[in-house]
């Protein structure tokens, strides 16, 4: 319960930052998607059911702050979680680079799922064009922010007395004996 609440509060703070401070100084395509980074991290670090619920709930939270319809980001974040989990079970998640690669895959996946859902269920209009044009900048910004946050986290973790090392190790060792 503590982890769920902490992750949700973290997501809320990220959303507030994205909609206010970042919005004041950065154009939309250069604002990092902090919630996506959080979902990728949680997908590697938490148990399946907990991470699935968190991804869905954080996605719903993002829906409140963006777009017009509740549910779009909830589906998207859930699918990103599944994608990350699929890869995490097959790759060495001890590598920091892997988290960044998964973050890139998540950014691409997000653009694809949003485009697909909007094209299928709603009137996508010029959204596809906007998404494609902003994708390179989004990739770069998310990677850079992910790198900074990851390094920050690895430095802070020992001070808090929590687990050491990269995300994913507890999960991997518990489930695969790595």
């Amino acid at each position, binding site marked *: 319960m503590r982890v769920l609440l902490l992750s949700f509060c973290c997501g*809320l703070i990220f*959303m*507030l*930052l*994205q*909609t*206010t*401070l*970042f*919005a*004041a*100084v950065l*154009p*939309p*395509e250069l*604002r990092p*998607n902090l*919630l996506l980074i959080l979902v990728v991290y949680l997908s590697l670090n938490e148990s*399946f*059911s907990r991470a*699935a*619920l968190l991804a*869905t709930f954080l*996605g*719903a*939270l*993002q*829906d*409140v*702050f*963006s*777009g*017009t*319809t*509740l*549910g*779009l*980001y*909830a*589906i998207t974040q*859930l*699918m990103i979680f*599944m994608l990350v989990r699929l890869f995490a079970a097959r790759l060495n998640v001890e590598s920091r680079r892997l988290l960044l690669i998964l973050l890139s895959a998540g950014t691409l996946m997000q653009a694809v799922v*949003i485009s697909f*859902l909007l094209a299928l*269920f*709603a*009137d*996508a*209009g*010029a*959204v596809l*064009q*906007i*998404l494609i044009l*902003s994708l390179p900048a*989004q990739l770069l910004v998310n990677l850079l922010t992910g790198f900074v946050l990851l390094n920050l986290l690895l430095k802070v973790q020992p001070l808090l007395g929590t687990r050491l090392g990269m995300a994913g190790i507890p999960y991997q060792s518990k489930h695969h004996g790595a």
Partner: protein
Amino acid sequence: MRHFLKRHQTLILAVLLLLAMLLVYSFNLRQKSATTLLERVVLAVTEPLQAALTLSGRSVGALWTRYLWLIETQEQNLALSRENRELRASLQGVSETRLENQRLRKLLDFVETDPRPVLPAMVVAEDASSWARTIVIDKGALQGVREGLPVVVAEGVVGRVIKVAPGSARVLLVIDASSSVAGLVQRFRTRGVARGNGRGLTFEYALRDETVQVGDLIITSGMGGLFPKGLVLGYVTQVQRTDASLFQQIELHPDLDFSRLEEVLVLLEPPP
């Protein structure tokens, strides 16, 4: 059966969650104008925080652009000097300015003639995604705001309210890709639909034979009943006609900077 469920419980959970979210999404697509409980609660809780953060963000932004980020200052100086010379030249055409004045005064007449009360609101947050264009204002249901009300500034249409919480509301900007407003060319009365494309607007369904020229002013037509007639949508920047299409391809440039919106006006419902 029990063994099967236990063995595949994670997959089943994931599929069930995905299906549930798809149902929620498709239900909300049909109920677009309704604000859900989750949205109402989160918007109500976060609005004061957003207002405080936006104010501090603006201070940081001002500090950054005024004192640190001066790369474009010289270019802007040159551009402003050029603009100054052009303006001096254009001052000579006083009669032209007078005509423009009359036209603009006509446009502003709607405020006097429209019986709707106007509610000023402050922009406290922007959209969290890179593709949608919405803003959050600090006025909500308690102040009489409801879904569908038009939001304007002196320079023209801003958008319409799509979600309402007790003390705040979300506004879909006209430049959002899912926004469309019925409009007409002020000079030639050519009708069409102004659709957002993220950065500006396109004017669609204007027949190929109709006259539209670069620089023409596009205003709301009042069709659909959402926006009052005569509000500025933007100026025509590009017109393309092809033999293959029945309609012209027209690009519009809104006369306001949507990334710098601070105060807006909500046009409330007219008193009964």
